């Protein structure tokens, strides 16, 4: 169990460092979604199932949707610019 905790914490740090370093905004958002999912697994390791459900639904669901919609509005996704 402790090995799993270490691996997940290392994954958390790795995604947190990698997310803002991506060149395209789409990659940043996808790595941030991975960060949220690892966080959700960590919550269930800490024996808090309410937090796990909420973080999975909110972080990887709602937050991701809002980010993608904003990226579409600021024309940061390829192929959506109406030239």
């Amino acid at each position, binding site marked *: 169990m402790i090995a799993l905790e270490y691996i997940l914490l290392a994954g958390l740090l790795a995604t947190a460092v990698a997310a803002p370093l991506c060149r395209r905004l789409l990659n940043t958002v996808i790595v941030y979604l991975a960060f949220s999912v690892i966080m959700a697994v960590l919550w269930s390791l800490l024996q808090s199932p*309410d937090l*796990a*459900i*909420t973080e999975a*639904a909110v972080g990887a*669901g*709602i937050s991701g*949707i809002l980010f993608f*919609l904003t990226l579409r509005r600021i024309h940061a996704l390829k192929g959506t610019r109406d030239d």
Partner: protein
Amino acid sequence: MTDAPGKGALRRLTDWVNGEREPKDQTLFVMEKRRLSRPEPTETEHAQRERSRLHRFLRWYPAAAVLICLVLSGALLCAVLALPAFGDDDAPIHNEVAEHYLEYTREETGAANAVTGMILTYRGFDTLGESCVLFLAVSCVMLLLRREDRGADDREEQKLLQEDAIARERPDRILQSVARILTPFLLLFALYVLLGGENSPGGGFSGGTILGCGLILYAAAFGHDAISRWFSQRVYAAVRTFGLLLYAGLYGYYIFLGANGLPCAFRLSLAIDLAVGLVVACTVYGFFSLFQRGEI
């Protein structure tokens, strides 16, 4: 004649509250022009000075930011290493309050899930504040993103109508087939998590977000017309306001009557759970709809 000044002040106050007039419109004094010690800089000199100040600031900013961040992280690290060990049984955070919550939640609130019972009854006012924050967030996003006049923003309006026509003619078959299967299960699961929050993990927040996600899937797959047939703007406003008012009413009544004892009569916590879930679901769906179309 004697109450004319009073009426004038009241009229000025109401005008200012309604945003029609600045309060200092009728100042009695005029600011005297001070004699300047040196001649005022010309326009281009001013602009150049501003730009050089900006450049100087931007040169020192990264170094200062990294320094502040390192100092802060170092201080926090030193503080955090002095905490009791992770998972320690004798940590001072596990005191008699937690013991009381765990032992008496079942009998005093009727909930088996200690976290849900705690946030709805023992710490109910925190949840009330959080529901207010959600309500406020949707209102603020509505202020920012709502398309007011229908005919003013022609280009945006045209683009939206075009997208609607395209979506109606050539619907996204994959999304629609998947949504046709998934949406009933999503809504059912959301209701299960909401109503079963007392005896199993879940509760208001989780169930509310899953309900919002179900509505978002339906709206994204079948278009705005399909969902506004039964979830129109009026229904949305009514549900949102009703949820918050129900919660605020229950807790207002409870606090004005002494706040002694818990509001756990007649499955009250189930009603509060439902209210919280509805507010969260409406918030989440409102965010999606405002981001995508600019209207609910």
